[in-house]
């Protein structure tokens, strides 16, 4: 390394931002070259002096409170001002205002009106969704918890068998309903076993299928009489949930495989159910 290079890299060296090899090269050069070593020392003291003597302007008292209250104001105004917000000039207090007041007023009223209509539309559209999700969200939480628990402890299956004719009778004997158990090993979803679980205030059947290294918990229990024929998919905390109803039974599949694969699983499962 020559002097020119060393001087050029001096700041990076002093800041500890060079790679180890360049670092070594500079150190070597500083040992060899007195002039550069002198430059290094004075530059180092200058850098320290800048760091030590430059005043640090701490935030004055009151600024924190000012910010906190402006955040709350912003939040309170959010629904009505969401449209007009970005048009507000920066530092309006101390800048000349080129816009005329009447225009601003009518603009704000328009924005307010638009926001009210928008909110009304949203509210009406939310009605059907808001009600179910209350129950659904709770159920989804339970389902995921159950799925996670089954993988956490050594308790994936009460009856570990890839044979549907072993799993089904075992479950039938423990439950007051007879869940369909199908073999999907040919389709890439081998059966791992069955388990009893407790969900939605009742004992349910859990069938465990595997997809590569992933597991699918398929929870089955009788659908209530009020249940609509509905099909749902959800994504929650990185888990895929798929729900369907078949022959008066609720099916909830939970897994960390992707949505497409879970839908494929659902489709294959339904195709394989043979009426008995």
């Amino acid at each position, binding site marked *: 390394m020559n002097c020119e290079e060393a001087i*050029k*890299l*001096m*700041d*990076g060296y002093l*800041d500890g*931002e060079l790679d180890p090899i360049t670092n070594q090269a500079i150190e070597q050069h500083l040992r060899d070259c007195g002039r550069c070593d002198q430059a290094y020392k*004075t*530059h180092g*003291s*200058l*850098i320290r*002096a*800048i*760091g030590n*003597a*430059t*005043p*640090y*302007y*701490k*935030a*004055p008292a009151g*600024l*924190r409170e*000012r*910010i*906190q209250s*402006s*955040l*709350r104001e*912003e*939040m309170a105004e959010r629904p009505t001002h969401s449209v007009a917000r970005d048009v507000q000039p*920066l*530092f309006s*207090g*101390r*800048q000349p205002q080129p816009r005329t007041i009447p225009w601003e007023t009518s603009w704000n009223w328009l924005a307010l009106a638009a926001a009210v209509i928008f909110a009304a539309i*949203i*509210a*009406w559209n*939310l*009605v*059907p*969704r*808001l*009600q*179910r*999700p209350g129950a*659904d*969200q709770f159920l989804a*939480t339970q389902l995921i918890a159950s799925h996670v628990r089954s993988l956490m402890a050594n308790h994936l299956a009460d009856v570990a068998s890839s044979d549907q004719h072993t799993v089904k009778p075992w479950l039938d004997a423990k439950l007051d309903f007879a869940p369909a158990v199908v073999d999907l090993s040919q389709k890439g979803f081998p059966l791992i076993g069955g388990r009893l679980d407790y969900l939605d205030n009742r004992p349910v059947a859990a069938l465990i299928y595997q997809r590569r290294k992933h597991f699918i918990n398929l929870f089955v229990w009788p659908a209530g009489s009020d249940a*609509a024929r*509905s*099909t*749902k*998919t*959800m994504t*929650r*905390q990185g888990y895929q949930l798929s729900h369907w109803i078949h022959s008066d039974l609720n099916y909830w599949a939970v897994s960390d495989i992707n949505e497409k694969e879970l839908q494929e699983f659902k489709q294959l499962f339904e195709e394989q159910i043979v009426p008995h």
Partner: protein
Amino acid sequence: MPRHDPNKIAMALPLKTADASQTEDLSDPKIVKFVVVKKREEQAKEEIMSFEQAMLPHLDAAHNLARWLLRNEQDAQDVVQEAYLRAFRSFSGFHGTNGRAWLLTIVRNTSYTLLKKNHAVDLTTNFDEEIHATGHDSVSPATILEHREDAQLIKEAMDELPAEFREILILRHQEGLSYKEIAGIAQIPSGTVMSRLARARARLKECLEARIGKEK
């Protein structure tokens, strides 16, 4: 320390529900509106709290940077307040871990917006070299360092520098940020940080020398 409780957030957010055929009765819209408002209030509270928890610890850093860039206390406070509002609006899009660098980027941009608005002419480094390079070679760095407790001297010398030099010196010397972080905040390539920092220090040294020279 996690900023959010994922379960709480998950419960507060509407589910992504793709329902094929759901036919529910519409109930009283007033109740729905009430539920929506309540839910929104809760979310708002949580949003503000997690924002403040993440960003208020960097208030001093934000103020210091703005104060150095704008060289004016009132402007600095206005800019910091505005920057916090801007940060708050885009906080949902912030998933990084370096809250300070993220906030300082916004403070820096907000400061520049005001500087440009006020037609502050020091955005670029077209600085009159001749005035400041009039042979103060006689003043040794040691002389400068004798004055190193003189905060006022450094302040005046700093204030003479262009904004992009002040900014990089503050970020490095007062916030101790890495070149990479500085590159992100000042929006320059990482490779430029070292050379700009070197130029900024050299210029500051010149300004200091000039001031010490005048005092004599």
